Every structure is written in C-alpha cells, then in structure tokens.
C-alpha cells in the first residue's frame, strides 16, 4: 500500500457572514503534484488557500495531512507547510537579509544559506538595501527566497507570479517543478499559464454557490 496523500480535503464548505462562498469541495494532493486553483475573481481562490494554510477555518468538512485529521495535528502541519499570500510579510523598512532573518526561524530546521537564496531569486548585491527602495517584483522575490530556505513539503502560493518578469517566472517554474520531483507538493493560484508538468487543476466554478 502506498503512502497516504500529503493533503486530502473532504467536502469542504465555507461561508462568510452566513453567506455560502463554496461547498462540497474535495480533492487529494499527492507527493509530486502541483495543483492550480482556478476561478474568476471572487470565486474563493484566496479563501480556499487560506483555509488550506489554516489561517481560516472551514465551516464544514475535514482536512487530512498524511492521513491524519488536521484537527489534532495543526502544529506539525504548520511546520510542514509554507504559505505565501498576497501580502507575504516583507517589511519595507528592513533589508532583504533582515527580512529573511526573522521569517526563517518561524519555520525552523531550514539549513540553507540566505545569500544563496537571495542570489537564486536574482537579488545578489541587494541583500542589504532597505526593501522600500525595491520594486514590486523585487519585493515579491524577497518573499519567494523563502522557498529556497524551506524544508516544508507543502507550498501554498497565492499568485506567486504577480509582478515577476519572464526570467523570474521561468526560474520559479523550475523551482516548483524541482520541489514536486523531490516529493513535495504545491498549491498555487495564478492568472497566468505556467509551464509545469504534473499540473492538475481545481476549478472553483464547480463548487460555487449561486
């Protein structure tokens, strides 16, 4: 028998302020898979990602991480999961290096080099420049540098390609692909069309409530 899936959602529903947003959402995410959540604006993509990241709680349904109910394994799950939202928590007054210095210990055991990570996202030479002097795309890259420093097997990325140039998009695609090949899994939302193998799709339209 094979190992249980990294993440399994059963019959997830969410209502905001007693108004249903989506319901009956189920999916299974295996090692090596990249899941793209699709849907129009307001269909609940970000909401779903925040539920997967345990920032929001689903109104109904359950989630399983490696076959364990998330309810009792929240802390281990958070250890094994990295979430980058629209606002990825990069402080404008700090330098890229300082930003990574406080973000890294939140997810301990990541034993990689900050300089290499910043170089990998194309920020070599800008490690010690205050972030408020950087462009939107460069700020996004600071956040993405965390992916190089992370040991988490599940990445949840909300619009990671936003504001990134074509070269950066290509690098990020390779990074996601490598992560999946190493046995990790990724959930992303994007309005672009990433060139990725193993890409599966989840269309929010199917679960929307009219």
């Amino acid at each position, binding site marked *: 028998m094979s190992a249980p899936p990294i993440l399994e959602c059963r019959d997830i529903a969410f209502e905001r302020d007693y108004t249903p947003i989506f319901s009956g959402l189920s999916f299974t995410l295996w090692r090596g898979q990249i899941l793209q959540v699709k849907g129009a604006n307001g269909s609940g993509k970000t909401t779903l990602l925040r539920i997967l990241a345990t920032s929001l709680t689903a109104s109904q349904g359950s989630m399983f991480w490696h076959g364990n109910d998330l309810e009792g394994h929240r802390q281990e799950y958070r250890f094994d999961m990295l979430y980058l939202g629209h*606002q990825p928590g990069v402080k404008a007054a700090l330098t890229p290096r300082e930003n990574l210095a406080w973000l890294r210990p939140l997810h*301990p055991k990541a034993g990689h080099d900050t300089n290499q990570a910043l170089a990998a996202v194309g920020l070599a030479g800008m490690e010690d420049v205050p972030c408020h002097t950087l462009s939107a795309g460069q700020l996004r890259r600071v956040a993405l540098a965390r992916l190089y420093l992370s040991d988490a097997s599940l990445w949840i990325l909300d619009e990671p390609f936003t504001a990134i140039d074509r070269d950066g998009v290509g690098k990020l695609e390779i990074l996601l692909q490598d992560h999946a090949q190493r046995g990790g899994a990724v959930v992303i939302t994007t309005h672009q069309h990433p060139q990725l193998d193993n890409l599966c799709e989840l269309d929010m339209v199917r679960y929307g409530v009219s």
Partner: protein
Amino acid sequence: MASPDAAPPELATATAFRAVLTRDLTLAFRHRGDMANPLIFFVMVATLVPLGVTPESGQLALLAPGMIWVMALLASLLSAETLFLADHRDGSLEQLALSPQPLWLLVLAKIIVHWLVTGLPLTLLSPLLGVMLSLPQAGFGPLVVSLLLGTAALSMIGAIGAALTVAIPRGGLLLSLIVMPLYMPVLIFGASAVQLAVDGISPSGALAILGALLAFSCLISPFATAGALRVSLHG
C-alpha cells in the same frame, strides 16, 4: 521532509522569540520619529494643564500625581494602536500566526518591544513632568517606580485591544473605548502610590498591588492577544 511518524520537529522557539524581538527593535529604531510622538504628546499635554487650570504651584502640586498618570495612560493608549497595524497590513501577522511556534510567545516578544520603546521612555521622562507640574519632592521616586510597573501593565492590556481592533478600519478610537475601562485599576493604584508618598504615607502597598496587576496582565494578555489576533485574521 517532515512526516507525521517522525519525532516532533525541533521548534527552536527561543530563536524565533529572539528573531521577533530583534526585528521589532530594528523596526522601532528605523522609525525613530514615531517613537518620539507619544513622548512629545506627553510633554505637550503637561503644558496644557497650567494653561487650562492655573500656573499656581500649590494647586498644580495637588493635581500633579493624578495628572501625570492620566497623561501617561493616554500616551500609552495612543501608541497601542500601532502595535499590530503594520504587521497586519504587510502580511507579517499572518506569517507569525501560521508558524508552528506558539503565537502567544511571539506576541509577548512584540509587547515587550512595545513597552521598551513607549512605556520605558515615558517613565524616564516623567520626572521632567513632575518638575513642570510642581510635584512635591517625595513623589518623584514613587512616580518613576509606579510608571515603570504600570506602563508595562498598560502595554499588556493595550495589546489585547489592539489585537481585537487591528482588522477594523479606523479602529483607533474603538481601541480607546474598549481598553480604557480595563486601564482603570492600573491608574487607581499608580496615581495613589504617588499621592500617598506626597502625603507622607508609605506607597509600598499600592506599588505591590501594581506589581500584582502587572503579573496578572502578563498571565492573561499574551494568550488573549494571540486568540484575538486569530479572530482578526478571520475577519
């Protein structure tokens, strides 16, 4: 990669605590101007008192213990709003909340820094206000000690209110509304300690209770604040 069967991951919580502490201190240092605002407010309001009431030193001396304490309380209240606001806007708050580290501990680090950059300077500045408002000599020591303990308790209590209102647009006024009743015991014992000393009575009882209030708020606030922050992230 972590799997559920492996031993629980090494959390290195102390490292995370230090990282948040260092980060907030660095940020406070980079925004030195913001740090000065409550202090300027403190001194300016002290200038309003003689203008509004009387410059006569005998009457000012009567008002001084309570006035200085009320002003310190208001200055602390003003600064409480900023505790989580920037973190909420740029997503750092969500990153803190989603880390496997205990959120209350990270919150505690933030509150400690908040006190270091607001409550402590207010305390150090208070003797100047004592001079401006003709506080009798005997009151100076208890004023500093009571503010040292009291502003720390105020930071703790204010954090709960700041966490509850961080997701609300223009939540500053609301923050004052919900926090001020909770500030009252601190004000009562803080101002009384100074008043007792001025009247020639030992303030040690009032100061001891102030210490107890601080201990109690340390016990409750990090957990209540962490819970409130999670609610705010839902909102």
